[in-house]
């Protein structure tokens, strides 16, 4: 360990229990997107965080804590340089019921469903849209509208 000026290093602490694996921190600034990377591989999302920020990067560290929707990111001042340069969090992803593509983490789903009004959360209600991915939702809506139109047109021809 190399000692630097006392308390000038910003240590990034991420609460794994609070982090839902969204894109807020990783899409913050293009400059740090190389240090803070976000990748979806199959049913697994991995977010790689840099462990510490230098003093001149203090603003970046603060904004990371600000954009996090769940307050999972906090910054601790330290004077000891940590051994590892980065650390990663992994998330299991939920697959679309229609096309089987993984599209959201369990944490994201939970965060969203908690914020929807109760009448949308009733069993067998319209909340089932949450089980399919956004692009399938577009297709489902388009197919339903098209079906109505095709039926109406064939009725008119008779």
């Amino acid at each position, binding site marked *: 360990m190399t000692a630097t000026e006392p308390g000038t290093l910003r240590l990034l602490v991420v609460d794994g229990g609070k982090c839902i694996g969204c894109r807020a921190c990783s899409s913050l600034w293009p400059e740090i997107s190389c240090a803070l990377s976000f990748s979806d591989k199959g049913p697994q999302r991995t977010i790689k965080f840099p462990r510490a920020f230098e003093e001149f990067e203090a603003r970046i560290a603060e904004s990371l804590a600000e954009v996090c*929707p769940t307050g999972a990111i906090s910054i601790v001042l330290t004077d000891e340089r940590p051994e590892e340069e980065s650390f990663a969090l992994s998330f299991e992803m939920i697959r679309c019921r229609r096309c089987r593509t993984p599209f959201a983490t369990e944490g994201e789903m939970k965060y969203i469903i908690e914020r929807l*009004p109760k009448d949308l959360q009733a069993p067998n209600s319209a909340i089932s849209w949450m089980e399919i991915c*956004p692009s399938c*939702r577009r297709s489902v809506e*388009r197919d339903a509208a*098209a079906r109505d139109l095709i039926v109406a047109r064939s009725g008119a021809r008779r």
Partner: protein
Amino acid sequence: MEIYVDLGRCICCHACEVACEREHGEPNISVEAVRYRASVPVSCHQCEVAPCALVCPSGALAKGASSVSFEAEKCTSCGLCLLVCPFGAIDMDSTSMVHKCDLCPEREVPACVLTCPTEALLYGDQEDATKELRRRAARRIAQSYAAAVGRDRA
């Protein structure tokens, strides 16, 4: 105010997408043909109970009097709005910018509606738009009835 669609008139020409892209740099409406038999444009429904605005952690998406507004400056690009929209009508581009139909606030009528060559897209409040849609449906019924009567006489 909302964009309404008279599906029977849509010819899948994509003019609405092009007009929107020219206005916003990215199309916020998408039109596709379904099995070559019908084409359906899909864009933001400006939901009355808007899940995107309920979920948005930064207040970038907000439910206004007659539409759901989006303020890019407040957006953190967390992507939760994309995941909650029941219609898949919100997009994120390669630079993590969120895109959604804003009904072209600087125009009297949205660019897509102005451009639509068959007037399949209508802009107005529910009463005006459904009145026009009913008028068109009634005319279609009357025309097919007139044609059927003509055939019988011949």
